[in-house]
């Protein structure tokens, strides 16, 4: 970047980040408070964390959340990649645009509406609310995200690459497994991680479709917070924050690895 960052914009940036992150750090800070409230800091303690780890119900919920997120990310990546391949293969421009618009509508429509409509669907279809209903709905709202991450990679790929593979004797399946998939791998990874984070921190949709006896972290935190302030929540949120931070770092490094060639390569 050539343009200099002026001191004013630097300060502005710092203030913005401060405002954005202050509540989180505030939360983290009080998770170590022995005082039991967020008004005054009495002393340093790990008690809340200990309590957290002794709470088996909570641990099961954490496990549930992770299982749902991983499965949802996995399935939505598979479905999303196939969808992207389908949209990309559409011959007519109009078909392509229509499919893409349908995809985008799902991304921009409010979670509440998606959640409510899933609730209606599941009750009408007679699917019991619980693990499967949550998983299904998570897969459903993750698929469009994966499609959106994978499609640009596909359209960036030169069509002669496919001709070249066919020319060298590759069957249609070979073309996909040996050329297309390796080419769009960065997009697939990006889609997977996006789906993972979206599923992990989804509240609204999940809130509608969890039944009795099944809950995810975000829903659980919400109900804890409603019952009254306990620093348990702070500890839990801190751990969640660290976890997403780790995800972001992993994602960053994967991205770096794949971008290096582009940066290092000469045109």
């Amino acid at each position, binding site marked *: 970047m050539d343009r200099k960052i002026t001191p004013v914009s630097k300060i502005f940036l710092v203030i913005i980040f401060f405002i954005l992150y202050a509540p989180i750090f505030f939360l983290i800070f009080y998770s170590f408070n022995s005082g039991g409230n967020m008004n005054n800091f009495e002393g340093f303690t790990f008690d809340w964390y200990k309590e957290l780890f002794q709470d088996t119900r909570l641990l099961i919920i954490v496990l549930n959340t992770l299982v749902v997120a991983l499965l949802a990310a996995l399935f939505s990546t598979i479905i999303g990649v196939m969808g992207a391949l389908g949209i990309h293969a559409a011959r007519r421009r109009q078909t392509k645009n229509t499919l893409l618009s349908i995809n985008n509508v799902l991304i921009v429509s409010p979670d509440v509406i998606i959640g409510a409509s899933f609730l209606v669907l599941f009750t009408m279809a007679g699917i019991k609310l619980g693990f499967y209903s949550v998983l299904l709905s998570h897969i459903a709202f993750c698929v469009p995200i994966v499609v959106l991450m994978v499609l640009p990679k596909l359209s960036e790929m030169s069509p002669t690459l496919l001709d*070249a593979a*066919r020319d*060298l*004797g*590759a069957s249609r399946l070979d073309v996909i497994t040996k050329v297309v998939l390796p080419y769009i791998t960065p997009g697939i990874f990006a889609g997977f991680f996006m789906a993972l984070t979206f599923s992990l921190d989804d509240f609204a949709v999940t809130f509608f479709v969890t039944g009795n006896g099944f809950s995810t972290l975000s829903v659980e935190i919400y109900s804890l917070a409603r019952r009254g302030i306990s620093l348990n929540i702070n500890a839990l949120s801190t751990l969640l924050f660290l976890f997403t931070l780790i995800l972001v770092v992993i994602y960053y490094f994967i991205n770096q690895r794949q971008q290096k060639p582009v940066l290092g390569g000469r045109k």
Partner: protein
Amino acid sequence: MANAIIEFKSVTKQYDNDPPVLDDVSFEIERGKFYTLLGPSGCGKTTILRLIAGFTEASDGEIYFNNKITNHVPANKRQVNTVFQDYALFPHLNVFENVAFGLRIKKMKNAEIEQKVKEALSFVNLEGYENREIREMSGGQRQRVAIARAIVNEPEVILLDEPLSALDLKLRTEMQYELRELQRRLGITFIFVTHDQEEALAMSDEIFVINKGKIQQSGTPTDIYDEPINRFVADFIGESNIVTGKMVQDQLVEMVGKRFECVDGGFQSNEPVEIVIRPEDLEITTVERGKLQVKVDSQLFRGVHYEISSYDQDGNEWLVHSTKKAVVGEEIGLYFDPEAIHVMRFNETEEEFDKRLEAYTDGSGHGK
């Protein structure tokens, strides 16, 4: 024909309701020769290659490969490999794996693959580059990888779509030699696409000149250069002076109000014709000795020669290539041999043209 490896019979290619991209094209490709498809942008060269390779299907007509109809054979089942204009190397594979791609598909043994890839890379002078990534290769090297990737499969035909267009002049000339040499060594049929006429003349056994989806003329480089069939070919291949005139009788043509001896025949008397004289066949001389009298309008130094533009009294432009300098504004004479004149009939098809040429060069008589 026994030796024909590819044959197009009245092939037409049309997209939707647009005018046809290829219009009733027929030709034969013989085994082991170097062919060039030459023509302006958009004339259908790439389309012909895509039809041969099987990336697209003909709307009408038959395409034969080894005397068998191949219209509906999928691309991966054809004994043809392509060097793409943009190389189309796989960016996620290194040089070795790019070249090995076709062999791996064929499930060849690793040891054999290794040996064949090494061999192919040494063919294109890229030994020791096996482990390079594609992005680490220069344009010319990438192109050679693309060629190695095609020849390693030992196809019967290699299609090359303007593979040299991205290279600088020096590298390009070098690659022209290398390609031609490679083709001789391997004995594989090459079909080469270019819109550079010099490249076509330098490399080919046979040239197809294409315009607007039709083959205008096919023949050896000298045939096409010396005996262009019509104005388009004469203009497209090399520089030329083209004027209209009429054929008084065989071996006597009239242009710019004068009669000249020539060597063409097989015309009706007083038939209107077009006359081509190549700039290098014109010789500058004094006004008295010249067959044509012209006034020098401008001149350009082209390195090997001067390109002199001059006009006769009728306003026809005459380009002259001369190693001697002329003086702008001066009246000069132009001298040329009867052999330098080439006479073209209007709207003559290639068949008629060939027949006529045969008739009068055999000495079997005038105007049949």
